[in-house]
């Protein structure tokens, strides 16, 4: 792989309708989600409301419910859904032969 993408592991290490985190030394974690259909998304592990760890929320459809006050965040855009307003930065993801790759530059920016 080139330096542009970070290889973070196998797709099936992320439970369906669940998530894992990538620890960025010196910065915030990145949350990596897998929906019921197997689509993978990465976002800053930080709710736009009060910084809740989105990685610990319940994943349903294409959204995650924040564990602190139940805001729903769209995984693809990071936007809060419904009445709530706010946005969590997203990190581009690609899957290559079963490996999950996240964009290095964005990951750095988001974690900092």
């Amino acid at each position: 792989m080139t330096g542009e993408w970070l290889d973070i592991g196998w797709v099936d290490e992320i439970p369906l309708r669940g998530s894992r985190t990538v620890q960025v030394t010196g910065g915030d974690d990145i949350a990596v989600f897998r929906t019921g259909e197997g689509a993978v998304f990465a976002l800053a592990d930080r709710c736009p409301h009060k910084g809740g760890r989105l990685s610990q929320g319940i994943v349903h459809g294409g959204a995650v419910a924040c564990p602190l006050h139940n805001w729903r965040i769209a995984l693809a855009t990071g936007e809060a859904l419904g009445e709530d307003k706010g946005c969590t930065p997203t990190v581009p993801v690609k899957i290559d032969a079963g490996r999950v790759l996240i964009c290095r530059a964005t990951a750095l920016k988001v974690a900092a």
Partner: protein
Amino acid sequence: MKHEPLTPGVDTRDHLVVIGNGMAGCRAVEELLARDPHRYRVTIFGAEPHVNYNRIMLSPVLAGEKTFEQIVINDADWYAQNAIELVSGDPVVAIDRAARTVTARSGRVTGYDRLLIATGSDPFIIPVPGKDLPGVIGFRDMKDVDHMLAAAERGGDAVVIGGGLLGLEAAHGLSLRGMKVTVLHIMPTLMERQLDEAAGWLLKSALEARGQTILIGADTAEIVGSDAVEGVRLKDGTLIPASLVVMAVGIRPSVALAREAGLAVGRGIQVDDHMVTSDPAILAVGECVEHDGNVYGLVAPLWDMCRALADGLTDAHSGYRGSVTSTKLKVAGLDVFSAGDFSGGDGAEDIVLRDASRGIYKRVVVKDDRIVGAVLYGDTADGNWYFDLLKKGENVADIRDLLIFGQAFASGGAQADPKSAVAALSDDAEICGCNGVTKGKVFACIDGGAHSLDAVRSGCKASASCGSCTGIVETLLALRLGDEVEAGPKTMCKCTSFGHDDVRREIVAQDMRSIPEVMQKLHWSTPDGCSSCRPALNYYLLCALPGIYKDDQQSRFVNERLHANIQKDGTYSVVPRMWGGLTNPRELRAIADVVEKYDAPMVKVTGGQRLDIFGIKREDLPAVWADLNAAGMVSGHAYGKSLRTVKTCVGSEWCRFGTQDSTGLGVKVERMTWGSWMPHKFKIAVSGCPRNCAEATIKDFGVVCVDSGYELSVGGNGGIKVRATDFLCKVATEEEAMHYCAAFIQLYREEARYLERTAPWIERVGVDYVRARIVDDAAGRDALAERFLFSQRFMQDDPWAARVAGADREQHAPMATFTPKQEVLA
């Protein structure tokens, strides 16, 4: 012009050599002949000793629905008539690009002007011990089918590893041929790349009903046997006997030849839009290629590729731009279709139709007024229509509301307004298929005073079972009553038209066993629910099926998933159980050590008479628990919709007013009730005298000891809306107090709605009802208590100890750690 066919040997036309006599190789030649039959001299090398046949029909051959002859695409005459030389059974082993020759295994060397590589894919064989034993095969060609047929002839057990399209078709064929088949699938959903959870569940149930055993989440450790296969051992130790093992876990593009020849190879042989490789004289097509980062495993893309390839070879360059694919399962009687992207995401909307009585699930994903994906189960008639709309990117805004009913309905004129369509139905028209209720009966019921959906459901049963006719019943109510329709009780959430009680009743009545099953049978309008209904369904199933239902971690709120309370900064607090509020030096020392060892910023005595350790990191939780376990402490469930604390006072052992051993009884009660999952949190207290120092009268179950026995009361709670308990009854002995407590908890577990604490529940059903069930009905009380104790047999394993032993380790550890150079993050 040099294009006239001449006798071989003196043919001066450019020589096109094709490696691979499969679907893509031959199709490419067909496309070329259709454009210019005389331009190239063609030689095809094939590793298999056959003419060109339709590989996808190997499944029907295995199932006995077709013979090999029936699946041949091009017979020997075709090669002869087109002057194509077929070299079958002799694979090419090397390409010499400088000399422009290929060498076959027989040693034969053939020169080329243009070379076409169409070597397809190889089955992926998972690298486990025993993979090379005789009897372990892939499912790719006629030889594999012959092998399976021979094995089936001998009978016995077969294991198919892989629950994708190929694996399920193999399993179906083998079971039709009389073998006892077990399918091992590592993922939680069959065909997870093509199907969503709901459709995967339907498929699994249908295959199980046909006698196959399907093990999901099954991870193969090794294939056992000395001279031939004898069985498969899973990582969890299970041994499944088998005389045949079919590996259908995936395919890998067959690129060895190209790689050795020095062509650019990524996951497949890299080609441009005209299927030309990094060497302009060499083309490649089919499953062996990688185009624009994609490799394909289905035939439809090959057809597009072959067209572009033939255009290029005849100097009419058109170019291939990638393909969208759709999948159908070729198993007789099981209709499954999927296409496009159904992962939802940004702005995507799901339209879901479920018809439980006919076993149908349809889901169309729409984004920006265009179809982007579809999953159909049970009725795939409209698959191609959706796929067509998808490929063309057609705007579906106008037909959106009727889209899910299919082409006939969405484009039909008069029916397009659902209200008039329902009004036009005759009185004999059956509205509710489950309960056989006609429109006339629904009207009669409404006229008889049923003015809400709920009243109709209990009055004539329409819409009471699967709910698929709810929309029609609501339309009937509106037609008959106009604005006078009364709103029914609240539905569980936006995903369903049923309330909590209906869902619970149907789970038991229909013996449902999993969340996807409930969602299918009760017509959920979302594919996998939401953060309100998932935890509720998980609890209802857990309560209905003690020891059978497997808890779904992804349907639990974080605290219950991590067995600790999440704090606002993302750390966790840990509360070990202190039975009845008692502790001892060993426990206190262990807690003190944990606080120091993990640098916990705070430790506090809770309002529930135990100690709470704050600021523990998710990664450190298992280690903290290991230390607490070592001192004999278990999870205090301060995080759960479950039994929390049993508060006690000192009681007769020390207190000058104490009448009974309230501390001892509290400990016993906590030992009996800990670990139980409930609709909401549940607190108990035992006070030693009516001074009530343990505040027993604001607990879910309270005991106040008196000289002559024990006064039991229920339904209290602190919190925002304080409620004192209702008196239940007085009993004479500790055993009775425990027995009533067990019965009361079980009644609450079975009948309260998820997230309804005992106080609001009792306000809703009335304390008289609870007394009637617990005090007046002795047999009922015994049965409830017995069900509670039975369910506790499966609940009283310390969840902390399980994590310490390694269960769900991934919940605590990051997937990866990334340490950027210091200057980058600064």
